[in-house]
C-alpha cells in the first residue's frame, strides 16, 4: 500500500496469500485486506483499545508455540498466519461453547437476530448442541440510561460499550460489574449514563444486549430496507444508514466515513430523523382560485404557475429558502430566481446546543441544525436571524419548511407568492400556489456539509401523495417558461448543479460516490469563495 508517504511496510502471508501492510498494522486488519474476516467480538476498528479479551480472534502463527489474538498481534515481515487451521478453529469453537453456556438463545424475540455476531460465528463454528447440563443462569434486564435497555443474559462481556464510553467518548460512565460468570455491564456507582453520543454503544454491541428503547421489538432485521443517506440533523453531515419498514423510518445507524464521522453519530441525529415520520404533509399541488386554494394535478399547477410568473414578469422580488434543501434543489431554484431576477435570498438556520466526541475532532453536533446551510452560502444566500415579516408587493418564493413560526399574514402583500414545501403551515395559506416537494429521505440528492464536503443521499421512502423532488418540480416550471429541459433523474440535476455553480465544478455524481467529495479542492479554498 504505497501512498507516497515514507512509511515502512511489512509483508506477511495470511492463509497462503501475501499481503503488504504498513508497519504497526494488526494481523486482524491485514487479514481483512485479503478478504479473511477473523471472527471477533471485542475488537472494533473505531475503538482504540484492544484488550484481546474475547479470545475469539485467535490465529495460528507458524513458528510460535501458542495461538495469538490477531487483534493485538502486530504484523511482522515474513509472518505466516493461519486463521483457519485446526488448532485455531478448535479454540474458537471452545470460546463459542463457553459464550453459549449462559446465553438464553432467545433469538426469536431478540432485536439483534439476523444482525448478531454471536449467531454468525456460532453458525460458522457449527456449534449446534450444548454439553452443559446445569440450568442457565437468568439475570434479567435493566435500563442503563433513559433510552437504552440492557439485556444482561444476552451480554457476552466484550466490553465494547465500556471502552467506547471510556476511550472514545472519554466518559467513564460504564463499567463491568462483578467478576466471572456474574459479570454484567452497569453504570459506575453514583454516575448516570447521560452522554450525547451514548447511542453508539447500541451499534457497537455485537449481540442484542444493548437495545434502544424506541426500537425494542419494532422490526426484525430482515424486514428492514437499508438505504445510504446523510443525517440532516446538523451541518456535520454524518453518513448514516436509514432502516425503513413499511415506508417508515425505524432506525438510523452511522455509516463509516473516515473523513466525517468515523464510525459514530450523535443521539440528537438519531432521534431527529426518526421524528421525520410524523406530521401532516403537503400531498397535492394547490393553486389559487379566487380567495381559495384548489387542489389540482401537476400539469395544471405547473402551467398555471408559469403563466402567473410570466404575468408578474422580471420584477425584483425576494426569496426565503430552507437549509434543508439539497444542492440540486438550490441549483434549479437559482435558475428560476435568475429568471425572476430575484437577488435578495434569505435563509434562517435554527440553532441548538453543541456536543463533541473528544476522540473524533470533526464529529460534533454543530449549532447549525440544518444539513445544507453551507451549500446555501455557496449559492450566495444571506443568513438572517429572523425572517422579515412585511412583504413588499413583489414576487416571493419560499422553498422548504421554515414558515412554522411565521406570522399569520406572511406573504399577504406579495404580487406572486410561490411556496414549495413538504408541510402546510398556516402562513402557506397566503400563497398563490403550493407545490408539494419531498424530504431528503424521499429523494436522491446531495448536501454540502460544514466544510464544503458534497455528500450523496438516496431515496429511502416513497413520497406522500403526488409530492415530487424539488428539483424535478422546478425544472418543469423552467421548461414551461422555455428556459431549460425537463429534468427527471438526479444525475441530470447534479449535472445542472455542476454546470451552473462554479464551486461544484469538476464533481460528478458517480465520482463523489457514497463517501462524498469536497467542493473545489477542499475546505480552505471554499472559504474564500464564500462572501462572508
Amino acid at each position, binding site marked *: 500500500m504505497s501512498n507516497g508517504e515514507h512509511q515502512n511496510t511489512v509483508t506477511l502471508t495470511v492463509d497462503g496469500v501475501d499481503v503488504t501492510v504498513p508497519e504497526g498494522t494488526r494481523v486482524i486488519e491485514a487479514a481483512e485486506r485479503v478478504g479473511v474476516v477473523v471472527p471477533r467480538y471485542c475488537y472494533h476498528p473505531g475503538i482504540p483499545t484492544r484488550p484481546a479479551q474475547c479470545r475469539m480472534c485467535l490465529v495460528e502463527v507458524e513458528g510460535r508455540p501458542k495461538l495469538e489474538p490477531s487483534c493485538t498481534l502486530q504484523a511482522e515481515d515474513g509472518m505466516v498466519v493461519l486463521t483457519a487451521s485446526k488448532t485455531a478453529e478448535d479454540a474458537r469453537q471452545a470460546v463459542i461453547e463457553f459464550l453459549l453456556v449462559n446465553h438464553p438463545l432467545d433469538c*426469536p*424475540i431478540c432485536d439483534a437476530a439476523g444482525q448478531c455476531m454471536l449467531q454468525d460465528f456460532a453458525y460458522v463454528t457449527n456449534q449446534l448442541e450444548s454439553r452443559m447440563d446445569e440450568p442457565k443462569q437468568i439475570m434479567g*434486564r435493566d435500563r442503563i440510561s433513559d433510552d437504552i435497555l440492557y439485556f444482561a443474559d444476552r451480554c457476552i462481556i466484550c466490553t465494547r460499550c465500556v471502552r467506547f464510553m471510556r476511550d472514545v467518548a472519554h466518559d467513564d460512565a460504564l463499567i463491568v460489574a462483578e467478576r466471572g460468570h456474574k459479570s454484567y455491564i452497569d453504570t459506575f456507582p453514583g454516575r448516570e449514563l447521560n452522554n450525547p453520543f451514548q447511542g453508539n454503544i447500541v451499534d457497537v454491541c455485537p449481540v442484542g444486549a444493548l437495545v434502544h428503547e424506541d426500537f*425494542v*421489538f*419494532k422490526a*426484525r432485521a*430482515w*424486514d428492514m430496507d437499508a438505504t445510504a443517506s446523510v443525517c440532516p440533523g446538523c451541518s456535520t453531515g454524518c453518513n448514516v444508514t436509514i432502516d425503513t419498514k413499511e415506508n417508515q423510518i425505524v432506525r438510523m445507524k452511522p455509516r463509516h466515513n473516515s473523513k466525517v464521522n468515523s464510525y459514530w453519530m450523535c443521539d440528537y441525529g438519531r432521534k431527529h430523523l426518526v421524528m421525520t415520520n410524523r406530521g401532516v404533509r403537503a400531498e397535492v399541488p394547490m393553486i389559487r382560485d379566487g380567495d381559495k386554494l384548489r387542489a389540482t394535478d401537476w400539469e395544471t399547477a405547473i402551467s398555471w404557475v408559469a403563466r402567473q410568473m410570466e404575468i408578474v414578469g422580471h420584477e425584483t422580488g425576494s426569496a426565503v429558502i430552507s437549509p434543508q434543501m439539497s444542492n440540486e434543489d438550490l441549483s434549479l431554484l437559482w435558475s428560476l430566481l435568475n429568471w425572476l431576477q430575484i437577488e435578495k435570498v434569505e435563509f434562517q438556520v435554527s440553532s441548538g446546543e453543541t456536543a463533541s466526541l473528544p476522540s473524533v475532532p470533526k464529529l460534533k453536533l454543530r449549532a447549525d441544525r440544518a444539513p445544507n446551510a453551507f451549500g446555501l452560502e455557496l449559492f450566495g444566500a444571506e443568513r438572517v436571524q429572523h425572517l422579515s415579516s412585511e412583504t413588499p408587493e413583489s414576487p416571493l418564493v419560499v422553498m422548504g419548511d421554515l414558515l412554522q413560526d411565521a406570522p399569520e399574514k406572511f406573504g399577504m402583500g406579495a404580487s406572486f407568492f410561490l411556496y414549495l414545501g413538504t408541510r402546510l403551515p398556516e402562513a402557506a395559506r397566503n400563497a398563490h400556489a403550493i407545490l408539494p416537494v419531498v424530504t431528503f429521505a424521499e429523494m436522491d440528492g446531495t448536501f454540502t456539509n460544514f466544510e464544503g464536503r458534497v455528500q450523496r443521499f438516496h431515496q429511502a421512502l416513497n413520497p406522500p401523495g403526488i409530492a415530487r423532488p424539488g428539483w424535478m418540480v422546478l425544472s418543469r416550471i423552467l421548461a414551461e417558461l422555455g428556459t431549460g429541459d425537463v429534468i427527471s433523474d438526479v444525475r441530470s440535476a447534479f449535472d445542472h448543479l455542476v454546470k451552473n455553480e462554479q464551486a461544484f465544478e469538476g464533481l460528478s455524481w458517480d465520482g463523489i460516490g457514497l463517501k462524498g467529495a469536497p467542493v473545489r479542492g477542499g475546505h480552505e479554498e471554499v472559504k474564500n469563495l464564500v462572501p462572508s
Partner: protein
Amino acid sequence: MPGEVKVVSRPKGEASYARAAAKGMRITLKHLLNPAKKTQQYPDEKWELSPRVRGTHRMAVHEDGRAKCVGCGLCPTVCPVNCIKLVPAEDENGERYAAIYEIDEFRCIFCGYCQEVCPVEAIHLGVHYENAEYSRERWVYDLERLCEQEHDVTALWDPSDPASQ
C-alpha cells in the same frame, strides 16, 4: 376438392352403445352390492381425517388464556403467500407479544410452514376444513378467533418417527 365428405364406417361392436351401457350397469351393480362404496351422507356423516391433515389454523394458549405467540415474526417471514400479518409489541412485563396477529385463511395454502417454524409451538394448523363465510373479511382470523378454535391440531410428522424413516 370442395364438397366431398369422407364417410368413415366403424365396426358394429364399437358403434353400438350396448357394450358401454352394460359396462356402466356392471359398476352400478357392484356398488349396490358393496356397502363400502356408497354415497356418503356428508353433513351427517363425515370423513375420518388423518391426524396430518392441514386445515384451519389454531393458536395455542397459556393456562391464563394468553396466546403463546411471542411475536417473533418468523411465520410471516416464512409464509409463501404472505397471509400472516403480525405487529409485535411490548407488554407491561416487558415481554414481547403479538399486538396484532391475523391470518387470512382465504389466501392461505395450508403448507404448514408457520407451524413448523414457530419456536414456541404457538401457531398450528388444525384437523378442520369446514370454513364457509358470507364475506371475505370474515376469513381473516384475528388472534382472539384463532385462540378460540377447538379442533385438533395437525401432526406435521409422526412423533414416534420424526425423520419419516
